[in-house]
């Protein structure tokens, strides 16, 4: 029982991070029709910038804020320098551009920072909380709470604000969005900036638990992509569910089967989704009205 609870909590914690990465994928895919494989680098930037700013004496909250700002700037530059000039390119070309950008960012991080693993102190201490025989790290609560806050904020923006509705409208019908006066380029830049912020927050929250280094982005991007696929690409609710589900699968797989194959689970999920339900768990098949 306590073992089950333990796996559940660690699964949800890592799943929340996958959910945030998946949410970033979804946001950009939704607004700009681009699958952004540099999404994981935003997570890396969030963690690494915070670590180095904190080590340089910046207080932790300010270091975290700085990291989010750096990630947003990188996200906007990625859009303006790499995606916007390639307007009209095929989906595959755009994916290759984002993969190229992610390699570039990883290489730059290796030079600007270093190749070591880095840790941040837990935000509210390391004293574990005991609950029904399971041990919870306080940082897990930060991750879960932070992820929930990000999801709620995004939900609020998309559902209740005019600019959020413009993003939904652009995703639903780009031609009509342009005809009512939405500047589609601004919406896409916003999506890249927003997804960068979300990724950076995920990176900051998880670093005290999993450590970070210049190359954590690759695996996180793939897992976040698997989660987004699992939830149905382009569906924010699905991204969250897909992320949590993938985290739980990994945690239980590592706990009950073998931790050797933990990372393989994400890829098995991708294959399973592609074979069995390409529209994802929550997504619907696209119906074209003629």
């Amino acid at each position: 029982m306590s073992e089950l609870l333990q796996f559940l909590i660690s699964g949800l914690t890592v799943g929340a991070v996958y959910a945030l990465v998946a949410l970033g994928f979804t946001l950009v895919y939704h607004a700009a029709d681009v699958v952004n494989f540099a999404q994981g680098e935003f997570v890396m930037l969030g963690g690494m910038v915070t670590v180095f700013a904190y080590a340089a004496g910046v207080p932790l909250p300010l270091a975290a804020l700085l990291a989010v700002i750096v990630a947003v700037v990188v996200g906007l530059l990625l859009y303006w320098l790499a995606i916007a000039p390639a307007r009209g390119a095929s989906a595959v070309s755009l994916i290759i551009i984002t993969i190229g950008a992610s390699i570039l960012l990883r290489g730059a991080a290796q030079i600007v920072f270093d190749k070591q693993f880095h840790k941040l102190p837990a935000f509210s201490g390391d004293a574990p909380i005991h609950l029904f025989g399971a041990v919870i790290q306080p940082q897990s609560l930060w991750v879960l709470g932070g992820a929930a806050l990000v999801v709620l904020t995004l939900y609020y923006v998309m559902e209740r604000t005019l600019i959020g509705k413009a993003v939904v409208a652009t995703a639903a019908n780009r031609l009509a969005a342009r005809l009512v006066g939405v500047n589609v380029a601004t919406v896409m830049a916003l999506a890249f900036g927003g997804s960068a912020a979300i990724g950076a927050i995920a990176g900051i929250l998880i670093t005290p638990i999993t450590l970070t280094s210049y190359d954590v982005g690759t695996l996180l991007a793939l897992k976040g992509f698997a989660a987004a696929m699992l939830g149905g690409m382009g569906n924010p609710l699905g991204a969250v569910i897909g992320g949590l589900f993938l985290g739980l699968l990994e945690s239980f797989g590592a706990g009950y089967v073998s931790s050797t194959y933990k990372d393989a689970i994400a890829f098995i999920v991708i294959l399973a989704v592609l074979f069995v339900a390409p529209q994802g768990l929550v997504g619907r098949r696209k119906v074209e009205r003629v």
Partner: protein
Amino acid sequence: MLEVKDLHSGYGRIDVLKGIGLEVHAGEVVALIGSNGAGKTTLLRALSGVQPVSGGEIRFLGQRIDKLAPHKRVGLGITQSPEGRQIFGPLSVADNLRLGAYLRKDDGIEADRERVYAMFPILKDKRDQQASGLSGGQQQMLAIGRALMGQPKLLLLDEPSLGLSPILVDQILDAVVAMRSSGITILLVEQNAAAALEIADRGYVIETGRIVHAGPAAELLTDPKVKAAYLGLD
């Protein structure tokens, strides 16, 4: 109000507009008729800036607009109800209308939305429903209402009667007449040429990317060539 001179546009290497020239004066309803593939929709899209042009000029209220981004043209007062409705399916009817006023900062938006509801009461009944659930005719009303929410000086209507029942066509055309009397200038594209010319002041006939006839609507209605080609009469 709107002057188009020698406008060229195409898709890839295929020229669709081959030197279009037309004028729309303030307060008019101008009908643009022509068969499928003549270039009607391409012309309206070029006027809104969502279709690139390869030559010629477009002037609106004396100002060159052919290089302006689409949202700048909406800001100047040109809105469009596009062919095939193109509503925002996942958003509610009320949100679709709100987005029609996306660039507006004034406080008359709510009053204008009520005006659209008064014009098309069915939209008020369904205001909280997803637009994708509307019938074809209701989506058409929504597309027109959304274009009106932008406070247009010039309204571009692309095939507003396409696929609608005769009763709905009448309702839409009555709405066009009402819009004109409220001071909106209208460029109306229609395959239903007889209906369009009946409510229009002037008309242009477009064939394979060129204007081939122009004149007062009443004259075009009785022109033997136009009658034979577009009105299905001898």
